[in-house]
């Protein structure tokens, strides 16, 4: 059973030496309790304390890093089943399957996409990072792995049943931390030995959770920490069941043999590329750490990356837009000026209605720490003496010298005061309360 921070603190040296990286033993204890630090970080911990803390100190789901540099994928370290309880930590690593049967042009295309594909969404760069190389021929496995590394710097998953083949492909790239896939009931000892020797992560695979847990126990006994689980779920329903039960066992029972991130292969579950994307979305929403697709068609990758971001965004911290002027529908100096807050939902709702109206407009987004219009107004952040300086400094009067500013209908009461604060030349107009009414409002608006 997990210990509290205070219980852990009693077992620490209480010297506040800071060598663990935290300012005090108490702070370290709290991090241990939260599963965010490892006991090994304390150089002075006694054997006695180690034994007592052992089970309680490691994170319930181990951190695993695959790949290196910008393309590295960090997974694991999750502490909850529901995202409203606490932020999900690490977005799953999305990737593509590359096989020995593919022709050179296909491999080049996929690696080119891995290298270049990147989407910016709410200030975050989202991209696929993983190349899963599946080859029965050991020479081809090694060659494709080397190619995926040099051409794309991809985080690698090496797929072969034979420990020797995995070793040959992984050894030259061991600093890039490729994931060996997979240790099974048949080859566990051999693959685990390679993972231990090269210091690289290893996947374990079985066709039931009981058997997977047995392999997990062997990995724990061998002191392997970087392990990834594949429960080989046969159907989408099994994916949900297996992922849920693994997450519950790890978090609610602190069951170490399953306390690792998971990998899933929607690419192997259906031949229909559209359905594969839908299947992949279940892996993304339901706890998977690595998700492998059959190709990287951007129209199918984009929604999956957005879903990862949505599910893994911090629910306590509203998504925010950057403060600034957003031109919509190519506005000119006679186009209307709208002002609202930088809560991402507010921005999305308003901007999509403005876009739909087809009326060119300037949308001024003011930083109020990501609050909605009414919340920010109530908190004194979206009020006349804050909005006026923002607008004056924004440079909007150069882009649209008519200086007529439309404020959200919900803050109609500040219009007089804002008029005063803005001073001569500016004019405050009260807009609509609901975003859905924006198109009609804009179509009727005129600068004169």
């Amino acid at each position, binding site marked *: 059973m997990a210990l509290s921070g205070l219980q852990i603190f009693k077992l620490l040296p209480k010297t506040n030496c800071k060598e663990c990286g935290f300012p005090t033993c108490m702070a370290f204890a709290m991090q241990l309790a939260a599963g965010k630090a490892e006991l090994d970080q304390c150089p002075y911990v006694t054997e006695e304390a180690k034994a007592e803390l052992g089970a309680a100190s490691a994170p319930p789901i181990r951190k695993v890093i695959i790949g290196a540099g910008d393309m590295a994928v960090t997974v694991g370290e999750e502490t909850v089943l529901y995202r409203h309880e606490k932020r999900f930590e690490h977005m799953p690593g999305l990737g593509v399957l590359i096989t020995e049967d593919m022709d050179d042009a296909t491999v080049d295309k996929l690696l080119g996409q891995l290298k270049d*594909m990147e989407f910016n969404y709410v200030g975050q760069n989202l991209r696929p990072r993983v190349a899963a190389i599946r080859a029965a021929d050991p020479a081809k496995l090694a060659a494709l792995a080397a190619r995926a590394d040099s051409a794309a710097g991809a985080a690698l998953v090496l797929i072969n049943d034979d420990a020797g083949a995995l070793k040959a492909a992984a050894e030259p790239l061991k600093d890039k931390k490729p994931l060996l896939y997979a240790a099974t009931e048949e080859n566990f000892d051999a693959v685990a030995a390679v993972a231990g020797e090269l210091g690289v992560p290893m996947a374990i695979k079985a066709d039931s959770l009981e058997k997977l847990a047995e392999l997990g126990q062997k990995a724990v006994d061998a002191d392997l920490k970087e392990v990834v689980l594949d429960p080989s779920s046969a159907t989408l329903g099994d994916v949900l069941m297996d992922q849920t*039960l693994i997450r519950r066992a790890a978090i609610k029972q602190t069951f170490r043999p399953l306390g690792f991130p998971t990998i899933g292969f929607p690419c192997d579950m259906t031949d229909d590329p*559209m359905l594969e994307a*839908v299947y992949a979305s279940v892996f993304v929403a339901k706890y998977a750490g690595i998700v492998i697709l059959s190709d990287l068609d951007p129209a199918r990758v*984009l929604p999956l990356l957005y879903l990862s971001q*949505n599910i893994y965004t911090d629910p306590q911290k509203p998504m925010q837009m950057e403060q600034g002027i957003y031109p919509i529908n190519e506005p000119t100096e006679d186009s209307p000026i709208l002002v609202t807050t930088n809560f991402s939902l507010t921005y999305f709702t308003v901007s999509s209605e403005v876009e739909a109206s087809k009326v060119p407009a300037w949308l001024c987004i003011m930083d109020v720490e990501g609050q909605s219009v009414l919340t920010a107004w109530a908190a004194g952040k979206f009020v006349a003496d804050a909005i006026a300086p923002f607008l004056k400094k924004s440079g909007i009067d150069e882009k649209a010298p008519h200086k007529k500013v439309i404020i959200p209908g919900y803050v109609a009461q500040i219009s007089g005061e804002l008029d005063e604060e803005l001073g001569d030349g500016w004019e405050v107009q009260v807009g609509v309360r609901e975003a859905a009414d924006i198109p009609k409002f804009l179509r009727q608006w005129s600068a004169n």
Partner: protein
Amino acid sequence: MSFTAPIEKTKGQIREVEIGSSSKVGGESTFPFHLWEGEMPNSPMVAMEVYDEPQPEWPEAVRKVYEDVMDDPVAWAKKCQDEFGADAIVLQLRSTDPNGTDASPEAAAETVKKVAEAISIPLLVNGTGSPDKDAEVLKKVAEAMPDRNIPIGPVDDANHRLIGAAAMGYKKPVVAFTSMDVNLAKQLNVLLSQLGVPEDKIIMDPTTGALGYGLEYCYSIMERDRLAALVQNDGKMQMPILNNLAPETWKAKESRVTEAEEPTYGDVETRGILWEAITATALLLSGTDILVMRHPQAVELVRSAIDGLQAQAKEKIAS
């Protein structure tokens, strides 16, 4: 250390609400698709939306599907029923929007009647979210269709008395709409039941955010709704959930911009269909009972996802 599957039995159960003459939604005694530890007697309903006036601004991918029926809601509804196998039709009374065509309640009720008579699958009627106008329109709809079990909505805290009274008078289920808040949802359910609306005639619409446009809020609100209903056994939260997702996903920029405009985004039709199908799948996982959808291929994908999610090797964890 040997593995014992961590099964969680829940105390509460979602109420079953009857729609039309023989369809039911809700009834779950477990989290979405957790068939290994509870029951989900009714598959989520995949409804398709029909508009009572043409939608010329839709993206090409959906416009071309309905081009031939856009000005005829009856033909549109039949197309969804006969060609696309919709479980139900949601008639979106967009023409009644006071900021748009502002059609009369009588005209809207007439359309509802024609559509209802033309189809054999259940019908649901959705207003425009304008509280005063919806109250007039939905009252008229209820009056005009005394013998049909047609859910009407959206009902919000501003018009719940008026629409609630009409719904009780004509024995119609209601769709109770709140904006992304567990407590507001519960409060509206309480208000409606205090008014006398039977609890098995309330469906909740928690507000739907599309993928990339607030989906995560809606996802977590629905998860919390279900925790309240199932784990805390809160009777005022045990209502089935409806997600009116199609208007949201097809409004998203990512469903609309063409590959010519955004070369890195890939084919716009594929993207639009997946935007709808993946939003719907996330809603399936967080607790929806009724999905309101638009593109037939997205509907097809979501049906496959539902079939897939229901296929579970329960014997693997036989407890």
